[in-house]
């Protein structure tokens, strides 16, 4: 942190506190003086957006929990009670339900940015793995939250997902009854899901602290993938990064508010407004959109155990990304082939998402299988080989050099323009 003055408490109370608990210094060095690469683009604002969304989900969730009844006979109607009789209850619920979707949208953007700019590479492996853990925790939290309104999709999603564990040889069935707390998804299941749904966000918050800690040890990556070398490459976190984050959070909130206020049920499924009925299977069980790519991978594989392994593997493989990618160049801007394969990978994930929402018949199954092969092929074949075969573009010597050459190229044809 050279070049930045260390924290000097101004008033008497902060001086007194700083000698006993140097929290002012911690905040100052982490969120004010912290040097951040000056060439970060808006893809780097999703970390701030995710922190904001975690806060929104925790605050709305705590208030919702005050009005919610985790019992199979009352859960559905208690949610409707929130919608009808709690002042602004409809707002809390729609902010929370759509908040989950926007939380996932932001985390996918954040992960895509990490993959594009090679943010998982040395020395950021632990930072990346903490991110994968956060994603897994989010998946679990989101799934259990979806069960709580106790609609038809809630109930049948819980049934389908918990039943996946029955694929485990020998101990599968006992594990499933243990998860259920009975012999079917029922009241004990709903209660433990509620309990865990309340617990896990605080676990997430804890891991977020580790994630940010690890980030502040190794420093942020940047679009060139070249390490920041001196203060010419960086700016102070405040005001430069804070104002940029705040601007983009406000844009994000405009889209979020569009959904909350004008199309709050667009991302949900109409069947979830039917109270859970164990005696009646919905026509077509689909998870929330943010799980669809993984659901498509599960269904693409004809063997149940293999499908479950592929489903889990599709997420766990991300943790091994730092070692599967053999290239030493971080940013895809300097890796022309990787960039193309990565775009196809993103398209394949979107395609899997679409296929996951359709019924698994005929051509849809074939397409899902091809895309699943590409998904895993990308990690296990393409990434290891590319590092050996690819000719990368020359890297700039430093961040400031890349900025200078960029602004020179931009200003030469049309005169000086900032």
């Amino acid at each position, binding site marked *: 942190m050279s070049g930045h003055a260390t924290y000097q408490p101004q008033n008497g109370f902060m001086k007194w506190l700083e000698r006993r608990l140097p929290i002012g210094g911690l905040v100052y060095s982490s969120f004010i003086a912290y040097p951040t690469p000056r060439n970060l683009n808006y893809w780097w604002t999703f970390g701030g957006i995710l922190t904001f969304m975690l806060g929104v989900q925790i605050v709305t969730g705590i208030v919702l929990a005050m009005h919610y009844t985790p019992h199979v006979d009352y859960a559905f109607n208690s949610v*409707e009670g929130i919608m009808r009789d709690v002042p602004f209850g409809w707002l809390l619920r729609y902010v929370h339900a759509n908040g989950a979707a926007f939380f996932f949208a932001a985390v996918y953007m954040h992960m895509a940015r990490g993959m594009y700019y090679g943010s998982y590479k040395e020395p950021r492996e632990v930072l990346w793995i903490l991110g994968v853990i956060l994603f897994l925790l989010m998946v679990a939290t989101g799934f259990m939250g979806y069960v709580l309104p106790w609609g038809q999709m809630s109930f049948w999603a819980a049934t389908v997902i918990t039943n996946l564990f029955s694929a485990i040889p020998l101990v599968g069935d006992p594990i499933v009854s243990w998860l259920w707390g009975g012999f079917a998804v029922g009241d004990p299941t709903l209660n433990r899901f509620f309990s865990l749904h309340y617990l896990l966000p605080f676990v997430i918050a804890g891991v977020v602290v580790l994630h940010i800690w690890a980030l502040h040890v190794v420093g942020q990556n940047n679009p060139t993938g070249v390490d920041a070398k001196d203060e010419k490459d960086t700016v102070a976190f405040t005001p430069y990064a804070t104002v940029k984050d705040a601007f983009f959070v406000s844009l994000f*909130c405009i889209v979020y508010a569009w959904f909350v*206020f004008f*199309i709050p049920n667009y991302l949900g499924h109409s069947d979830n407004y039917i109270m859970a009925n164990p005696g009646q299977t919905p026509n077509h069980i689909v998870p929330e959109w943010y799980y669809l790519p993984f659901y498509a991978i599960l269904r693409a594989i004809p063997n149940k155990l293999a499908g479950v392994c592929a489903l889990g593997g599709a997420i766990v493989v991300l943790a091994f990304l730092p070692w599967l990618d053999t290239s030493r160049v971080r940013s895809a801007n300097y890796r022309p082939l990787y960039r193309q394969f990565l775009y196809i990978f993103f398209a394949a994930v979107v395609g899997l998402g679409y296929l996951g929402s359709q019924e698994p018949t*005929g051509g*849809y199954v*074939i397409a899902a299988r091809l895309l699943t092969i590409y998904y895993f092929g990308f990690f296990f074949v393409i990434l290891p080989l590319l590092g050996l075969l690819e000719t990368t573009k020359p890297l700039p010597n430093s961040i400031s050099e890349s900025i200078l050459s960029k602004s020179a190229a931009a200003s030469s044809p049309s005169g000086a323009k900032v």
Partner: protein
Amino acid sequence: MTLSRIIMSRIIVRSAAALAVALVFSVVVVQAARAQDSEPEAPTRQHWSFHGAFGSYDPAQLQRGFKVYKEVCSNCHSLKLIAFRNLADPGGPDFSEAQAQAIASGYQVTDGPNDQGQMFQRPGRLADAFPPPFANDNAARAALGGALPPDMSVLAKARGYEWGFPWFILDAFTQYQEDGPDYIHALMTGYTDPPKGVTLPPGAQYNKYFLGHAIGMPKPLSDGQVEYTDGTPATVDQYGRDVAAFLMWAAEPSLDARHRLGFQVMIYLIVLAGLLYFTKKKVWYDVAH
């Protein structure tokens, strides 16, 4: 090195092409399969006063829809989550409190137990929910030949139609969320004679918008059945639209408040984003990045 690059780019082109072909093929196959079986017809989209950011319920329409519900639907369908007081809530059918009270007292509600330990009947009050037409689900099934009429409290949000690509994307921009009311209106108007070669199970009717087409509910509405006093045409088409609007209000009573607050929040956020944009420009003014 150049050779490997050429091979690589060929692999990329081929894999992209293969994926594209697979997707097109699969869509064609499924569309073809879909056309053959007994999928329900797509409902016709109606004009709803409550559609879009500036939409709000039409109280006159909700009152007509309530009349259709009260005189026809409520013979079999419960409305358990709606209280009589809700009829006088702002953003609803706009009944006065006295009117809502009068409607409530027209119903008999089971209360108790009293001091003698007996359940008893009394006229409804504002705080009571609409009493269900049957004591329980089994009583409904027994009276209606095995069919169970669903509760109508959230029915308009519990039904819909999947338009598929590209509509599901466009609808996010046009704010179209009225598939539930569209479906209810369509169902009211969708009773026809079964096509040749289609045999229905005993007691079932043919409805072209119902999944599987065999619906347990007999045709509930016919022209002129419910008397309208405001000159609105007394047709099945109009009844269907009015009752669908009423059920949408029942399912989403806070819609008017939501749209109003949403507009204010949008203005706030757009101004905030604008101010932050210029603040950001100012802060970064002399920083090359």
